[in-house]
């Protein structure tokens, strides 16, 4: 049984998630706590960038070239979830953001693999991202008092951006409630093993439910875009 491919714009949020998180992880270059971890974060960023490019390439008839999609759209045109645009914070903050996102992205791509050619490859990549984030969450949560405090704080801060992940994206055939259930079970398991508490606060604000998917973003996103796009906008059509 083959289902028809999802209509083109439905894959835009997936591409924007990958591009924006890739950019955030790239910001660690030159700043990561150790060289080995810097390479690991850059590798994950490059995997995500590759996913974004593949997804954007499929939208070129509608939205133009990959460069135009990434560098010439305004803030409101981006459909990434707000979790991916959150600033890096400290290392624990980045790891928890990565854990929340890759625990969402991997089963999402797994569900989409019958209709999305990219997804099968992306599932393998994302499995590694998820493993990396889980391994670090266990070590940070169950590490020193300092690392535990920072990791718990990151989880509490980012929790409000997790509800949005399971807002249905129009045009994608996904079992969203099932995805949410799987996500909560997995996060609960990792947190239990890491000695962390699953945050009790709301997983979305009244202002944020599904907002990123509708083009409404948090304040740090404008700064991210300005930095990401300024070179391309300053030198239109530049080649190297």
């Amino acid at each position, binding site marked *: 049984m083959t289902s028809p491919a999802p209509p083109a714009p439905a894959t835009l949020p997936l591409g924007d998630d990958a591009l924006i998180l890739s950019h955030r992880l790239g910001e660690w270059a030159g700043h990561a706590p*150790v060289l080995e971890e810097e390479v690991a974060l850059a590798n994950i960023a490059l995997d995500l960038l590759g996913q974004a490019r593949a997804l954007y390439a499929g939208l070129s008839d509608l939205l133009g070239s990959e460069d135009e999609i990434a560098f010439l759209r305004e803030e409101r045109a981006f459909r990434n979830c707000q979790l991916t645009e959150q600033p890096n914070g400290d290392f624990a903050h980045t790891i928890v953001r990565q854990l929340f996102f890759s625990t969402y992205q991997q089963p999402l791509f797994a569900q989409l693999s019958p209709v999305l050619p990219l997804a099968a490859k992306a599932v393998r990549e994302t499995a590694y991202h998820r493993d990396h984030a889980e*391994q670090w969450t266990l070590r940070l949560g169950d590490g020193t008092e300092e690392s535990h405090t920072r990791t718990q704080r990151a989880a509490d801060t980012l929790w409000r951006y997790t509800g949005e992940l399971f807002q249905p994206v129009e045009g994608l055939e996904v079992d969203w409630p099932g995805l949410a259930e799987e996500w909560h079970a997995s996060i609960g398991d990792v947190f239990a093993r890491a000695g962390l508490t699953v945050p009790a606060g709301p997983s979305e604000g009244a202002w944020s439910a599904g907002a990123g998917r509708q083009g409404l973003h948090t304040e740090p996103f404008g700064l991210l875009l300005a930095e990401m796009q300024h070179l391309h906008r300053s030198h239109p059509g530049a080649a190297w």
Partner: protein
Amino acid sequence: MSAEWPLWEVFVRSRRGLSHTHAGSLHAPDAQMALRNARDLFTRRSEGVSLWVVPSDEITASSPDEKDPFFAPAADKPYRHPTFYEVPEGVRNL
């Protein structure tokens, strides 16, 4: 921070049938993280199918001062070298 992390030696098996070969070293907090770091640093371009990581502390190395007693006697005893028969064609990795 990395100064506190132990050093690990990384061995990569480039394909099935070959031995693991020393590829380099890295810092990591424990063996599982060392394996993951090794994957990122040494096998991202399909260089390998298997990885070993070994704590550098656990390796006992010969000393450069002992080079002569350790290695010199081999060359003047040709009967120790398997050079007196032909290697059949088609035998690889020998």
